[in-house]
């Protein structure tokens, strides 16, 4: 399976690439618009600041090619910020627009809990999920974030709670996203990536 990782310069592409290669995937990392349009399957990893991701996509002229690829139903997995970028906007980067493929705004988690939401947490399933297939409902995944996506529409396949519920697993046609880091989530994380590769094949 050939996977194209979008390397916009501020993400953790190395660890995601390593996790995919362990599963036998052929991984290429790119920030070139043409390679996005030609990709068989796309992953947008992300850590850090949402503004860094969105402005970097624009600086590399990747926004439109990415939207074109998604319009052609290229299988896509967004990780952490890569999921948050799919929404219309984020409170973390109020001056920039998100990719707008999903309705709603990414907002800060409530202040009555420790922020960042950091560590291993469990999910609550809302719909049958292809990404979570074969993974125990008790499984823990590794989270590290302060902002989170709303729970809205049929795309929210599973939620997690930290101060409030938020979308932890998103599935809508060929569009997938996870708020946690599967590449850092031990065996369940590897299984989730394997599921994505199988769906995308």
């Amino acid at each position, binding site marked *: 399976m050939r996977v194209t990782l979008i390397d916009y310069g*501020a993400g*953790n592409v*190395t*660890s995601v690439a*390593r*996790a995919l290669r362990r599963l036998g995937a052929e991984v290429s990392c790119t920030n070139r618009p043409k390679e996005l349009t030609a990709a068989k399957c796309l992953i947008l990893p992300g*850590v*850090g*600041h949402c503004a860094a991701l969105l402005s970097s996509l624009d600086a590399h002229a990747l926004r439109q090619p990415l939207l074109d690829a998604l319009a052609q139903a290229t299988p896509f997995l967004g990780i952490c910020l890569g999921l948050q970028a799919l929404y219309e906007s984020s409170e973390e980067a109020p001056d920039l627009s998100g990719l707008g493929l999903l309705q709603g705004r990414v907002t800060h988690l409530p*202040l009555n809990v*420790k*922020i*960042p*939401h*950091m*560590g*291993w*947490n*469990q*999910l*609550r399933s809302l719909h049958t999920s292809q990404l979570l297939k074969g993974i*125990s409902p*008790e*499984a*823990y995944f*590794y989270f*590290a*974030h*302060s902002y989170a996506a709303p729970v809205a529409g049929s795309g929210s396949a599973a939620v*997690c*709670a*930290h101060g409030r519920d938020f979308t932890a697993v998103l599935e809508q046609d060929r569009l997938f996203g996870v708020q946690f*880091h599967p*590449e*850092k*989530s*031990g*065996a369940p*994380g*590897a299984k989730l990536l394997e599921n994505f590769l199988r769906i995308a094949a």
Partner: protein
Amino acid sequence: MSLAHRIIPCLDTDGSRVVKGVHFEGLRDAGDPVELAARYNVEGADELVVLDIAAVRDNRPTFLETIRRVAEQLSIPLAAGGGIRSLHDARAVVGAGADKITLNTAAVERPDLIGELSREFGAQAIVLAIDARRETDFWQVRVRGGRVATTLDAQDWARRGVELGAGEILLTSVDRDGTQSGFDVSLTSAISHCVSVPVIASGGAKIPQHFLEVFTTGSADAALAASIFHEKAQSIRALKSFLQANGVEVRLPC
């Protein structure tokens, strides 16, 4: 369903080998970091910390290579630190495969370093390590491996570090470190209640009861230990089973 309390083994290295010893004194070899990392990855560690306790300039390429080889073994997060004094140093550590950067002495000497790194990598990637020693009526921040006193109060410094952009506090009790007499629960509780970010307790762990105390009375979000894990005096799995049986949420592999 809630956030699990984390158990974090720490690899203190001289750059390439894991060493054991209290603050540079009587250092002895405690194993290969890559072998230990591989073992902890499967034994249920929630995260790993690797530190260059010598932090000698000439040694940097060796330490970066150690980070790279350790990261290759892991499917859990990795924090690395020791001798990170600039954005340039931090980029090298992150580039080698670390998910988080721990800052200690360099942040005390130049607090703005915290913000510089936080803006580049995000608060979730910046761990402020604080070595604290009990004085009569406060906890004093110590630097250079706990040997040198500062004028900082640990609670003030923790709050300031979070304001500047730290996303986590790694809190070591200088009094307890190496003693195996239990975590400093009152220190941990004091810091945990004065900041909004997670606190990792460190220094003094020996038996499962010590971990239970620091998670309950101490309000720690994570607990770190080194030699008891390296020497197999305590298995991570047995420790987590004990904590779960005592009502502490932990991640057991399933």
